[in-house]
């Protein structure tokens, strides 16, 4: 990479940070408990809109993993989840009515909060429908992973998005608040992911899975990106570029080994396809607040009307992280 390109990326990073700084006015604190954050705490950042039904399990899952504090931006929920979040002892929550899209799908908001509160912390950036898995997550807390990453001088940790879906129609089995979403949607595609390298930011571009297979069979290049880097030892000079797909400075995107070895990596189980999805897809059709003019949702709505079955004979049923590691979806790297 030449000096010129490096300089341009630096400018770009500064632009995102200035933008995040300006978007801070969008956010009104509802419950600010950030004074509780101790220097070694693990933080979780998220944006949510009408996710009331998912949040109880979401918080429980990450509390058990060892997250110490949650920082959540509520984008004008109407289902009472804001009040519920505000009443939780380890949650700081901000409210905004502003456009999700104009905050670059929430990235600006979270970049700002991270700039302000996450400096020097390990932080996870996940959506309420994403469950993070890492090697040995059934026997070792998240802190074991971050300590190991610190000892190995690794600053960012990759976790690919793995779409989970139910067997049968998506709206067949209702999801109850507090329930493990994997009870409803335990299936996934094991081996149809394709990878290309993004020369500009140095990250990998992963596509595939059931969304590509069912909704984009004729235009796979439009299928959503599945590469994510949700766990980063944050520094206030860092910035997410688009969702958690890539970061600047670009060294943080080098979460893969180029010389034949495997680095340690995890998986984000994406439990988007619950019964709540159909109504969400319809709402998005009118709201158009998602990426690429909600193109994804247009395709979903069309696809869902015809054939809302994502399950196929070759779908795998989720058992544990070791299964995903054997399938080659994640790796222990040299963590043993």
């Amino acid at each position, binding site marked *: 990479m030449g000096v010129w390109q490096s300089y341009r990326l630096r400018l770009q990073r500064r632009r995102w940070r200035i933008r995040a700084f300006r978007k801070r006015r969008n956010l009104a604190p509802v419950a600010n408990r950030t004074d509780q954050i101790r220097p070694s705490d693990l933080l979780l950042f998220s944006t949510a809109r009408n996710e009331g039904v998912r949040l109880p399990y979401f918080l429980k899952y990450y509390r058990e993993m060892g997250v110490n504090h949650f920082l959540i931006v509520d984008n004008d929920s109407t289902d009472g989840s804001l009040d519920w979040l505000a009443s939780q002892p380890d949650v700081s929550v901000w409210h905004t009515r502003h456009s999700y899209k104009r905050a670059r799908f929430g990235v600006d908001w979270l970049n700002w909060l991270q700039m302000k509160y996450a400096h020097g912390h390990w932080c996870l950036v996940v959506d309420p429908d994403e469950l993070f898995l890492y090697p040995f997550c059934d026997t070792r807390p998240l802190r074991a992973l971050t300590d190991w990453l610190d000892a190995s001088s690794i600053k960012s940790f990759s976790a690919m998005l793995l779409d989970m879906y139910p067997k049968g129609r998506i709206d067949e089995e209702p999801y109850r608040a507090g329930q493990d979403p994997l009870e409803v949607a335990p299936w996934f595609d094991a081996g149809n992911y394709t990878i290309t390298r993004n020369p500009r930011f140095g990250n990998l571009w992963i596509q595939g899975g059931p969304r590509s297979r069912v909704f984009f069979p004729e235009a796979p290049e439009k299928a959503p990106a599945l590469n994510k880097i949700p766990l980063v030892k944050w520094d206030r000079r860092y910035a997410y570029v688009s969702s958690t797909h890539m970061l600047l400075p670009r060294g943080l995107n080098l979460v893969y080994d180029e010389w034949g070895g*495997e680095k340690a990596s995890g998986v984000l189980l994406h439990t988007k396809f619950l019964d709540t999805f159909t109504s969400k897809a319809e709402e998005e059709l009118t709201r158009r607040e998602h990426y690429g003019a909600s193109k994804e949702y247009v395709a979903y709505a069309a696809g869902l009307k015809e054939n809302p079955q994502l399950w196929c004979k070759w779908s795998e049923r989720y058992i544990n992280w070791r299964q995903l590691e054997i399938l080659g979806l994640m790796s222990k790297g040299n963590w043993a």
Partner: protein
Amino acid sequence: MLIHTAFGRAEQVARHWTRAGCPVVIHTDVTVASKAYADFRERLSDDPLIRFSRRHRCEWGTWGLVAASQDASELMLAEFPDVRHVYLASGSCLPLRPVEELIDYLAERPRTDFIESATTSEVPWTVGGLDEERFTMRFPFSWRRHRTLFDRFVAFQRRVGYRRRIPRGLVPHMGSQWWCLTRQTLSAILQDPKRPTYDRYFRSVWIPDESYFQTLARLYSTNIESRSLTLSKFDFQGKPHIFYDDHLQLLRRSDCFVARKIWPRAQRLYDAFLGEAAAQNQAEPNPGKIDRIFAKAVDRRTRGRPGLYMQSRFPNWGWENGLTAGKYSVFHGFAELFEDFETWLARATDAQVHGHLFAPDRVHYAGGQTLVNGALSDSAAIRDANPRAFLTNLIWNTRGERQCFQFGPHDTPSVNWFTGRDPNAQISIVSGAWAVPLFRSNRDFADLRREAAALQKVEAKFLDELRSPDVKARIRIWSMAEFIEAPMEPLQVIVDEIGQKAQRRLTEAPRMADLAGFGQFLQNLKNQGMHPYLMGDFPVDPAPRRGATPAKKPYLIKR
């Protein structure tokens, strides 16, 4: 005992040692805040067997660690005259067996020094290439804090050919820094009149804690057992592996006396090993299983799983360590030449035989399936967005089952180069066989001529690619004329090489398409100015008469 962090755990372990009657001298890194240090001292002040030695700055790879061990050893030898063996441990070391067992073990070997010590030229342990040179260069810059200066200064010394003199009588040895020495050996090292010379020399050796005692022990010890009593595994960057709660059983079964490094929050490990003494056990330490697990981890980190492309493994060109996960076969022209080639091959080999996986309309999986292992789709668009990933995914998903597929000049061309480069591929080509479907089709001759010309051009390019010196696949090429002379012999070779079923002679031949008149067809093409040459020399047989003779039954010659 050298500590710099996790004082709670260090206290626990120190008390564990003293409870069994072993005195402990603690060295605390000078960078620890004085308040924390004072607290720690205060907490342990009730224990008469614990002493604190003079504090040094212990940065990794520097002299401070040796100085700390020297001072602590001197204090130990002076204050506790009954001590016979001195064991160097750290705050993250954990005794796995009751201390009494270690005491007995050492009592049975009163003259033995347990210190891993090997000459530098004979071990491949060092990470980063500084093995011999760490003894002959100077290292004034910190590797941790001034990496660039460190590297540049090393490069500079290499360039000017700088070499220090090693003090007379010393033969550099290296090994694990966690040793257990007898009073005799240790005091000989510490009281040596030449110690100032040695100290001055080792002060600017790189990572002296792995070589100071290891080298000097060779001068004085009468009985060196070159292994460490501390179980300590290193990863490919040279940093120690860490033990967690889920290693409990593994550590129990290892029968090692002390393990490092333990994660300070591994509550279960500390509870299990510092709690009640287990049954007496005379076993020798046996870390074999742990060695294997960690060796595997290093292998996974450095070489990875062949044929896997994933979020944290995406090798550069040439570094794949196996382009694909398993062996597979590619057939050019066989399905065109034989009417039932796919079903025949499936019967003959038990392999998964696909049609044209890279056909322009869709992916022709075996048995007409629309999805296969791993939910791989049959959409041509998805496949062609990344044909290489499609193929590597298919081979990865079907590990353990041989895949065969047909390929030809109609198909996605970029695949040819990839399979050609792959040692796992077995490529068999009957060149020119694409003309058979043209010959048997019922289309205008002008169309046929145009298509034949196009297909011939594509196939000629394939063959060129497969003759490149970079090609690593197992390749066999026959011209069509050559092949139909004696088709069974090449087929037998191919099937034997696939080798799924027990080796035996083929009992059944695939049915060849009726080629009567094919020579004339080629001649017609030639007459039109298009010279088909890839199929070899076909005799122009007389044009078939109406109601052609029934196809000859294929036969096999049994030897």
